[in-house]
């Protein structure tokens, strides 16, 4: 339960953080509201203090004045009292106190208290209180000072009312002499509840005003930022669409302000981008078209030359030895020329996006077997042992068998060609998702930097090395395109002196994404794997594929 609550809180927190980071508008509005709230609080505080001070000051002066008047009246009354009459003060004191409490300019139910001074010990000495329930604890702080200083003094205090409510008061006290009895103290207790009510009203009004102001400021900030943020958001949206390839998208330009300028320059940028992309597209289309046309146009004269060479070749027995040899060379080079042209056409078809996949369920193992059987004579000539390892139940995948056969033939021919007479292994394996074929040679291998280069068009491992079997230099590029057309991978592994392995991985069903291969890219019999002690010292793994370099 607790954990769930905690996760909920954490999720909510993360979501708000995300919203905060994402929304400029939220940030601006929040900041504005926060700062205006702070300013209003500060201002309100100052205002309330001022009002309070003003109110209290007025009340204090009025209170002091009234207290002075009352004191004088009391003193006069005591002085002029007929002391011959016994017990005169016993009646005079309560009357006077009541009279003082009622009189005076200030309204409200103030209390007047007449207390005996510290020197009077007689319990019979008269006392006066305007109301019996008056709380006189408020006088406690003031009394010693009044007794000592013998002057009119005042202080703020609080009294407990009958209702239980504590009310702030001004207490004014002064000594008074009752002739024949001694020193008394006269205290006025002026309640400040009216002032408190007024102050509360002011405070409430200010708070309401502040709240309204904050909401207003927040709203204004929201509106203002919206004016700025909306075009910015629109620009972001349009930019996303542009990058998604919808090059004709533009922003709406309204007015002549900064945002309109932003929109206008954004649109100019988009237009210029669009123009350049179109230009590049056109250029590339023209180029692809050119390659395709050239290849086509070359075909007719090549056919003629081919036939002429054939006729010469057939009749070479009757020629001069040098002419005979020339006819043979002509024939051989025409073969090469022809396969080059065929590969060029194939690749131009890929470049033009015109390659079509005719996929149907095919047993890759049997395709591999056919290829291996067909390549046996070449392997024999090169002294290589050609071995095929495939699962007995076969490895069926949806592929274009013509293309896959071409890929495998290419890989096997390459392996034999670079295998230096050592064994070449073709390994077929399958799992639920994918079928893979790995072709392993044990020739001179590939440098790490070359592993990604082998698929480049017309790339050669060693430019100085003579081409022997006369590949076109396009074979692996076409194989790579074939693999991509199937949604598959073609990857190479190589180590100088340790041979290479080319691995073709194909999804079993067309349209599914590959996420692994049944065969590891590095063969199990690589020297690094056979001697694991060396692995610790190996600075990096020499494995690469075109995907790795961001193809």
């Amino acid at each position, binding site marked *: 339960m607790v954990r769930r609550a905690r996760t909920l809180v954490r999720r909510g927190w993360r979501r708000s953080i995300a919203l905060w980071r994402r929304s400029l508008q939220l940030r601006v509005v929040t900041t504005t509201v926060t700062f205006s709230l702070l300013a209003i609080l500060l201002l309100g505080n100052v205002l309330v203090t001022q009002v309070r001070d003003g109110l209290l000051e007025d009340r204090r002066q009025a209170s002091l004045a009234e207290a002075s008047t009352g004191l004088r009246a009391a003193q006069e009354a005591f002085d002029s009292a007929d002391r011959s009459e016994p017990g005169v003060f016993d009646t005079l004191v309560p009357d006077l106190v009541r009279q003082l409490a009622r009189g005076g300019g200030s309204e409200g139910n103030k209390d007047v208290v007449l207390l005996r001074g510290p020197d009077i010990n007689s319990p019979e000495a008269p006392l006066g209180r305007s109301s019996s329930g008056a709380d006189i604890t408020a006088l406690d702080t003031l009394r010693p000072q009044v007794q000592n200083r013998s002057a009119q003094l005042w202080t703020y205090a609080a009294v407990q009312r009958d209702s239980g409510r504590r009310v702030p008061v001004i207490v004014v006290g002064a000594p008074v002499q009752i002739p024949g009895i001694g020193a008394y103290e006269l205290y006025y207790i002026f309640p400040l509840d009216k002032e408190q009510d007024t102050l509360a009203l002011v405070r409430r009004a200010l708070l309401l005003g502040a709240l309204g102001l904050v909401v207003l400021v927040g709203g204004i900030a929201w509106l203002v930022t919206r004016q700025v943020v909306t075009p910015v958001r629109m620009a972001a949206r349009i930019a996303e669409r542009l990058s998604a390839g919808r090059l004709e998208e533009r922003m709406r330009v309204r007015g002549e302000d900064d945002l309109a300028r932003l929109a206008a320059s954004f649109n100019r940028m988009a237009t210029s981008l669009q123009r350049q992309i179109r230009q590049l597209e056109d250029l590339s289309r023209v180029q692809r078209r050119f390659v395709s046309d050239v290849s086509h146009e070359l075909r007719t004269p090549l056919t003629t030359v081919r036939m002429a060479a054939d*006729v010469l070749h057939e009749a070479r027995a009757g020629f001069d030895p040098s002419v005979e040899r020339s006819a043979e060379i002509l024939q051989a080079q025409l073969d090469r020329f022809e396969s080059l042209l065929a590969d060029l056409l194939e690749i131009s078809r890929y470049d033009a996006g015109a390659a*079509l996949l005719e996929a149907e369920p095919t047993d890759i193992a049997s395709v591999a077997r056919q290829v291996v059987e067909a390549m046996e004579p070449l392997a024999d000539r090169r002294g290589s042992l050609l071995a095929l390892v495939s699962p007995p139940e076969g490895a069926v995948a949806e592929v274009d068998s013509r293309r896959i056969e071409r890929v495998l033939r290419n890989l096997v021919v390459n392996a034999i060609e670079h295998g230096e007479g050592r064994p070449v292994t073709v390994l077929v394996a399958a799992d639920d998702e994918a079928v893979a074929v790995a072709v392993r040679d044990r020739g001179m291998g590939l440098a790490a930097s070359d592993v990604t280069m082998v698929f480049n068009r017309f790339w050669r491992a060693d430019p100085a090395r003579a081409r022997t079997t006369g590949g076109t230099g396009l074979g692996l590029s076409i194989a790579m395109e074939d693999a991509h057309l199937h949604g598959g991978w073609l990857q190479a592994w190589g180590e100088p002196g340790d041979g290479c392995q080319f691995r073709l991985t194909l999804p079993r069903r067309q349209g599914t994404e590959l996420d692994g291969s049944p065969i590891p890219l590095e063969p199990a019999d690589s020297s690094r794997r056979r001697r694991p002690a060396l692995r610790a010292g190996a600075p990096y793994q020499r494995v690469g594929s075109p995907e790795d370099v961001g193809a």
Partner: protein
Amino acid sequence: MKGRVLIVDDDTALAEMLGIVLRGEGYEPTLCADGDQALPMFREHKPDLVLLDLMLPGTDGIDVCRAIRAESGVPIVMLTAKTDTIDVVVGLESGADDYVVKPFKPKELVARIRARLRRSEEPAPELLEIGDLVIDVAGHSVRRDGGPIPLTPLEFDLLVALARKPWQVFTREVLLEQVWGYRHAADTRLVNVHVQRLRSKVERDPERPEVVVTVRGVGYKAGPA
């Protein structure tokens, strides 16, 4: 003489070279460099086979093909520089029996020509039935209810191949070998297109074939007699 071949090609060097090669093989070639001249020359020379370039000035190779096919069942072999699906199919649908893609080896071309002309040997008299058709193999005729149905030699060969073994389902590859004479894997569209053409002539309702029946995923077989 093994046969007369009309070579229709605007590339004179290629045409001449084709002539040399075919003459060397014992054929009697006639050259035609212009699509507009192709039909008059065809009528004049009555060749046993036409070698036709698809890209021609004047009348297009496709049109020449249709025109010749309209008046004769003579074998037509296209020369094409394009391997793009659509061109080959258009050529086959306009009546060509087979095609060779440039650049081709002379032997390959000669093999294709020979395959198309191979019928010169006299077949034994034989009557076959397929669907409600009666085939006279020696007389090279197909009849339904006594009325003849004109077929090109290739279509006839195709029908005969199916009718001779009505119990067998023929894959496209087997038909390519038996009818077209291909030893290696070749373009199975040849079979598809010509089965369509054949059906349009021999079926009562080409949409619901009864003579040449498709066996899904395998190939074709003869309908029950």
